[in-house]
């Protein structure tokens, strides 16, 4: 594998890794999936703040 080809593969792998980490940590999947359901079947989002 040439040096340039190896660099491209490494960069692509790094971008894929960072993208996967971002999607795992920063996307609220429960909300995303919930909003794809029909309105009558959606879970209700209940807001609270950390006070008693």
């Amino acid at each position, binding site marked *: 594998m040439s040096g340039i080809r190896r660099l491209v593969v490494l960069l692509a792998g790094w971008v894929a890794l960072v993208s996967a980490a971002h999607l795992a940590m920063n996307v609220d999947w429960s909300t995303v999936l919930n909003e794809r359901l029909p309105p009558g079947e959606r*879970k209700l*989002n*209940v*807001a*609270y*703040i*950390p*006070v*008693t």
Partner: protein
Amino acid sequence: MTDYVSRYSLDGNIFIPKKFQGFPEIKEALIADRMQAGFMVAPMAMALRSQGVPIKIVYLGHRYGSAVVVSKEGPVHSVRDLVGRTIAIPSRFSDEHLIVLRALEANDVDRREVEIVEMPPPDVAGALAVDAIDAFSMGEPFPSQAEMGGFGRVLFQAREYWPDYMSCVLVVRQDVIDRRPRAVQTLVDGIARSGLWLDDEERARLHRDHAADFVGRFYFNQPPDLLRWALLRDLRRVVYTELEPRRADFELVRDLMLEHGLLERSLELEEYVDPRFARGAMGQTAWRYVPGSRVAR
């Protein structure tokens, strides 16, 4: 209550709890329909309803639990000592604001003699610790945070000036009430049962100790010992029963809001409260749940 909401969701279905850091953000999320229900201070809910936002109050979150806190070694030892001082509140449209106004009036202090500033609840204890403010009026566990940290002292509990004090209420969007009343009833029933469990006559201390642990670690991201301080030092500091919306309580809030220019027009209770879910929850009993077990019934 938060745990009930979460567990119900994890177990199968209806709710997703979402933590916010301030009431204005909850307000915006409700208006935008990103949240379908939420806990917010009663005056804010009433102000939103008066502005035409389609929400209704269906239940209370708790009673009492708010206090005015001053610097432990500071010069404020009475409400009259607050003259010329700065007090932080969570919002103009909050019961914590109204209780300050009520205390000032009861002590013949003109509201204009005190500087009242809005501040997100998580910031107030730190602001008091560095003397950025002289006092704050806030719900638990922030009074406890200042006490535990050794820099705050409770000047008065809200109940001293407001015997049936209430603060957070559960609001639900009208379209959800219309389309999914059974889900709303399930939520209210769960809150009622959680409250009865927390205020259990014989095991309240055990239950609150357990609640402080898991709510602190998994929901509030606060030290469990802080919540233990708030929930256990005096069981009457925050009360989780008698949560049905009462006309007299809300009319008092409405009248105070009108008196202080926080509400543009008078509202009738039926405009902003839907009492049928509280009525439906009246026969509920406390969760049968032993701390440490995996099942609640």
